[in-house]
């Protein structure tokens, strides 16, 4: 047992679980390092939820896998500064498991996703409605079971999903506003159902899943390079972060270490992706409160950064630049100089622009106290990234469970507690400044050498997990190879899983016209969530 293992909260957790009467089905393993892995009996699953709640863990993610006679169900928990994956199996004939949702609201939709995709029933789940499934397959079919063909069995067209049971509200003056799936703008599709009185939002309910593309299913049987390409399209705006997370998981599984230069270039791309998205969204938030000046200024900066990424890496979003074992593209000295210059210039521009924004009372009026996510809710929903950081949740994978090359750098993480739109905007502006510092450090210490280690597909059923802090926050990527070196299971957990439920809560008691600005300040990915 290493020093680290001795100090970890996981020991106490395991001891307490034993005291609660749980039995372990396998010895504590490091096969998912840096996460610890333990196995419990299915009947102990409720105890795991209870103990995780009692231990003040963050409920991170859950995913299943069809292993023939049994389904494996995993839950990932976090408490500073270690991840723990708890695994259990349920019989295919009786796929029933206790729900963690009574302990963690964050478990609600992930469990319903597993229910729809595997046909596992979660006992005591407060909401048994389907989530990811609409009308493309029946309630007797489960796409992630092995016997379900990836091609599906559908003849003809898929009917609209107009029978979803939304919550309803009654009373004098209460009315409903249905929005979507096709929204009034250049936005991804999803359905929002508002109940309002006058201008006030009583309740918002989301119905997502419209862009479900079967990512988990069509990942199966791919080779490593194919999975990296698919991961790069889980959510296009986070293409770098998702590809990195999937490659990290595959590399850990296969025991491949990318060269230093590749790791630095990955971080460089990831920080550029963060800056570009934050700039674009700050502009869009300002646009939503009719401050066109801000929209155009931030749009200009975003385009400047996007263009330089295109020149330096050969793709404006740096898509497909990360591959298993390393990166595909080197950068030239001229690009290094230009990126250094850009990272030097942005803080001054940003500081001036934010001063103009701060000076404007009408913007202040729209952004402050709008869309407040309380600390308690942010914690209960497991919010990460800028949504969490604006509501007092400081977690950042780069700093708290550091990985190369961030383990050699100083990562500054802004933190606010007001949880309103203004706080989220501030966090994002400050993250841009921190990223500029990181970019400068990365460029100053960029190691020379190879771009890619030789990739060799594993020849046994190894597994791995990758954790990357993308611009939206923590991405978890789970990969297991089959014995033929092809992908047996892929599950990417985009941080949007944690922020979509937060949006429902934070928009309450706001006026309907403030919904767009609330939504933009959170900016969940539909694609990354629907899979």
């Amino acid at each position, binding site marked *: 047992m290493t020093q680290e293992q001795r100090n970890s909260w996981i020991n106490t957790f395991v001891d307490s679980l034993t005291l609660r009467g749980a039995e372990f089905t396998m010895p504590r393993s490091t096969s998912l390092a840096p996460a610890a892995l333990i196995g419990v009996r299915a009947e102990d699953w409720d105890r795991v939820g209870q103990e995780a709640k009692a231990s003040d863990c963050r409920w991170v993610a859950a995913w299943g896998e069809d292993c023939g006679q049994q389904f494996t169900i995993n839950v990932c928990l976090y408490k500073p500064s270690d991840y723990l994956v708890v695994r259990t199996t349920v019989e295919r004939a009786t796929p029933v498991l206790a729900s963690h949702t009574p302990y963690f609201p964050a478990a609600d939709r992930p469990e319903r996703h597993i229910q729809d995709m595997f046909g596992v029933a979660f006992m005591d789940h407060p909401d048994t409605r389907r989530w990811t499934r609409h009308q493309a397959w029946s309630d007797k079919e489960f796409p992630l079971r092995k016997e379900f063909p*990836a091609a599906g069995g559908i003849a003809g067209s898929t009917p609209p999903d107009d029978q979803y049971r939304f919550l309803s509200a009654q009373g004098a003056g209460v009315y409903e506003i249905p929005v979507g799936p096709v929204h009034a703008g250049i936005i991804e599709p999803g359905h929002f159902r508002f109940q309002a009185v006058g201008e006030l939002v009583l309740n918002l309910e989301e119905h997502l899943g419209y862009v479900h593309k079967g990512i988990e299913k069509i990942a199966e049987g791919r080779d490593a390079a194919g999975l990296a390409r698919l991961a790069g399209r889980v959510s296009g705006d986070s293409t770098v972060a998702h590809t990195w997370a999937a490659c990290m998981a595959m590399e850990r599984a296969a025991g491949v270490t990318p060269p230093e230069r590749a790791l630095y270039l990955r971080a460089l791309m990831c920080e550029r992706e963060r800056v570009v998205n934050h700039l674009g969204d700050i502009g869009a938030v300002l646009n939503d409160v009719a401050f066109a000046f801000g929209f155009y200024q931030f749009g200009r900066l975003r385009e400047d950064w996007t263009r330089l990424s295109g020149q330096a890496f050969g793709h404006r979003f740096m898509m497909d630049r990360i591959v298993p074992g390393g990166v595909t593209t080197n950068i030239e000295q001229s690009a290094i100089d230009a990126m250094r210059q850009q990272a030097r210039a942005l803080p001054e521009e940003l500081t001036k622009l934010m001063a103009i924004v701060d000076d404007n009372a009408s913007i202040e009026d729209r952004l402050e106290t709008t869309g407040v996510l309380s600390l308690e809710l942010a914690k209960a929903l497991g919010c990460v990234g800028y949504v969490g950081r604006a509501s007092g949740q400081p977690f950042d994978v780069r700093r708290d469970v550091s990985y190369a090359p961030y383990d050699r750098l100083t990562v500054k993480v802004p933190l606010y507690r007001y949880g309103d739109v203004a706080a989220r905007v501030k966090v994002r502006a400050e993250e841009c400044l921190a990223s500029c510092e990181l970019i400068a450090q990365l460029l100053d210490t960029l190691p020379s050498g190879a771009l890619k280690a030789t990739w060799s597909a594993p020849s046994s059923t190894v597994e791995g997990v990758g954790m990357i802090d993308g611009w939206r926050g923590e991405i978890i990527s789970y990969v297991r190879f089959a014995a033929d070196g092809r992908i047996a299971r892929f599950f990417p957990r985009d941080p949007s899983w944690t922020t979509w439920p937060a949006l429902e809560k934070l928009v309450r008691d706001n006026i309907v016209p403030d919904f767009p600005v609330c939504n933009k300040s959170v900016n969940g990915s539909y694609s990354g969530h629907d899979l």
Partner: protein
Amino acid sequence: MLRILRKTQRVGVITEPLPEDGELALEQVGAQLKARVGEMFGGSLAIREVDAGSCNGCELEIHALNNPYYGIERFGVHFVASPRHADMLLVTGPVSRHMEAALKRTYEATPDPKLVIAVGECGANGGEFGVSYASCGAVANVVPVDAVILGCPPTPLKLMLGILEAIGKRARR
């Protein structure tokens, strides 16, 4: 207010005439686009963008058409909120099965004569996602398509060229 004016003046007009290597200059494409839009759509081409299942990469580039560099509105092209106001649908894909009905209804709500452009590799041919239990693949598998714009995602300039080509094709009909 003074600071805003100062900033605006200092940044100046960045909206571009930029000849990119090998590619047609934006101004050139824009001038042609404006002429065509003028001729065929009374000076105003209204586009309804429909994300029918994309990864959102295409949306980012379509958004970029409205940033001050590309400023596509100056050529008479603008994005509208309702298909009923649209001359053209710009559809990104692959079309997920869960969006199949919504896309068809959007298509039906768009008044004739209408132009449909499938955007991106996925919209054009299904891309990384292809056809599966969850995806119908190409946009053309669901609604009639007049033109495609390839790229993953297509750059803003490619999008403008594609829109130009599509309305050129319509003119020849």
